[in-house]
């Protein structure tokens, strides 16, 4: 019997197998941010174990609330800062260099095919886009990971989502994943790795694959995972060109992290996306999805473009394509949070920031902030946000607020109209120029 990607990764990282179904696996990286890590750091200190398993495998960032907005968040940041300094953690990103962890760390080249990664953050599943096993954990598991470089997981079962067909203009990775979640349900992949495969995946950029894998958790998945291919190698090349003499050699090495033809999947969901239209969520659960046409005229108060789901340069380009030469509806406020300093810088160079600002957007520094209702765009009671983030839970972006999840282009279109509307009417149609 062949193996899935996740099974291959577990087999190569297993250091203990205390009971039939439980595997202690060795970690290639432990990612840390300032909301869940300081508690682990404090606990390690109190146990007299203020150290890390391997300082080069710890990657840390202050991203959720940054720059600090009050004394308490300043204290969280301070603990991270002192910890990185005391323990000589070099890959630590503070104000000025910091960005949303799941956008920043891939951009720095910290994720490779076949890696195992944990973080005290449920959207760690994003990094599976590189053919890695990456999972969100609680602070207890994070703490053990920081100290010992291991984490326990049950043997991975994999649910395969096979995507075929041709993507229509105006349909983005966000529309695809929202559709997949609506098909699976919010617990449809619980205790499972979701492996994305099929011709659609081969055509997706790494950023788009990250958008897909990022929301695996919204269907309950442990990790989203894409088989590494030429696109993966091209993205990673600046970081791996000293390891391999050619891209072909790298590809040859990385394709071993692909599921075998006879691998056992616990379920296979086949979706032809040819008929898929731009979509939006409508309720408080990410599987409550309708087409934007069905949501047409739903008024919005705020547009939020950013987050680990959709705050990367391709997302900004897609939104800017809709916004170019247009203004936000006066009833709407627009917030753009480029996910990393590099995204921000590139957006400036490409003239995208001008397009956003001309449209009337407020451009904030890279941070998670508003996505989880902590800062930089929290909603008031009764307000509605068209958002490119990943969770529309009741009160997620602010108590009493309503969040409609959609692609950056759809969010931009809602900003111009003042209500949810089909972004395709704002896009240059093929053949028009």
């Amino acid at each position, binding site marked *: 019997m062949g193996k899935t990607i996740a099974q291959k990764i577990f087999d190569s990282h297993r250091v203990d197998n205390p*009971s039939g179904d439980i595997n202690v696996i060795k970690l290639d990286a432990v990612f840390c941010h300032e909301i869940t890590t300081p508690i682990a750091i404090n606990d390690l200190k109190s146990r007299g174990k203020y150290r890390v398993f391997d300082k080069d495998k710890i990657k840390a960032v202050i991203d959720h609330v940054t720059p600090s907005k009050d004394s308490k968040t300043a204290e969280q940041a301070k603990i991270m800062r002192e910890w990185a300094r005391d323990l000589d953690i070099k890959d630590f990103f503070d104000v000025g260099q910091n960005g949303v962890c799941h956008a920043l760390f891939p951009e720095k080249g910290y994720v490779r095919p076949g890696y195992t990664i944990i973080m005290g953050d449920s959207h760690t599943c994003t990094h599976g886009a590189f053919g890695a096993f990456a999972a969100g954990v609680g602070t*207890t598991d994070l703490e053990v990971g920081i100290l*010992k470089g291991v984490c326990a997981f049950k043997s991975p079962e994999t649910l395969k989502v096979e995507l075929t067909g041709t993507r229509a203009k105006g349909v983005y990775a966000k529309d695809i994943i929202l559709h997949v979640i609506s098909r699976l349900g919010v617990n449809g992949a619980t205790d499972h790795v979701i492996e994305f495969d099929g011709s659609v995946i081969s055509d997706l950029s790494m950023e788009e694959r990250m958008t897909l894998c990022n929301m695996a958790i919204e269907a309950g998945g442990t990790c989203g995972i894409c088989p590494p291919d030429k696109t993966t190698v091209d993205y990673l090349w600046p970081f791996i060109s000293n390891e391999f003499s050619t891209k072909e050699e790298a590809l040859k090495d990385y394709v071993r992290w692909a599921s075998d033809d006879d691998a056992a999947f616990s379920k296979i969901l086949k979706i032809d996306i040819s008929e898929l239209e731009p979509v939006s969520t409508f309720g408080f659960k990410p599987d409550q999805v309708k087409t934007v046409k069905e949501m047409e005229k739903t008024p919005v108060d705020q547009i939020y473009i950013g987050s680990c789901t959709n705050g990367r340069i391709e997302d900004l380009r897609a939104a800017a394509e809709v916004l170019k030469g247009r203004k936000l509806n006066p009833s709407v406020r627009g917030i753009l949070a480029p996910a990393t300093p590099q995204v921000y810088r590139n957006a400036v160079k490409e003239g995208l920031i001008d397009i956003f600002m001309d449209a009337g957007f407020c451009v904030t520094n890279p941070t998670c902030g508003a996505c989880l209702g902590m800062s930089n765009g929290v909603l008031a009671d009764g307000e509605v946000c068209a958002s490119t983030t990943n969770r529309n839970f009741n009160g997620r972006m602010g108590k009493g607020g309503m969040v409609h999840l959609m692609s950056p282009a759809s969010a931009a279109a809602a900003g111009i109209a003042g209500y949810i509307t089909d972004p395709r009417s704002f896009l240059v149609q093929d053949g028009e120029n």
Partner: protein
Amino acid sequence: MNEKIIEITGKAVPLRGDDIDTDRIIPARFMKCLTFDGLGQFAFYDVKYGEKGEEKEHVLNSPDFKGHAILISGRNFGCGSSREHAPWALKGMGIRCIIARSYAEIFANNCSSLGIPALAVDENIADELLKMVEDDPAVDFSIDLLGKRLYSGNRTFPFHIPENYRLALVEGRWDTTSMLMESLEDIERANKRLPAFID
């Protein structure tokens, strides 16, 4: 070795609904803490309190269920954010055991590390238990983790819990931080035996 959690007795709180996420259990704005102490006051904060901090009409505010140690809910309990603050907030409000139709994976794991049994029951049993508690808030429950049975009066109900979690609870090995910190020397040795991986 931690406390062995073998039997839990107490009264219950019926919290109807599926997919109750960890943002509901504790909103992110209460995650500015530096330890997990004192989070009980924030448990279900936006469910329990209105805009001006006034208590809402809700089962979690009802004197009938105050101080009850067993939380009963629906499908996919604890979905969303991985925040361990969520089970800590529940523990802080006095919850010692959860009974639901199913759980999100990270939440179930976090409960296990805190010594909170997260028991899964079939839909009809969940419905029946919710109704029993709503009809009579004073009804007593007893959970036997050795016999894997839930008792109330002369009724018996089966439940599911992953065997590794159950054994960790009954054998007093649920505090994985303490346990692993003390016992990982074997793993460290194994780690050294493995060839360096990739880099």
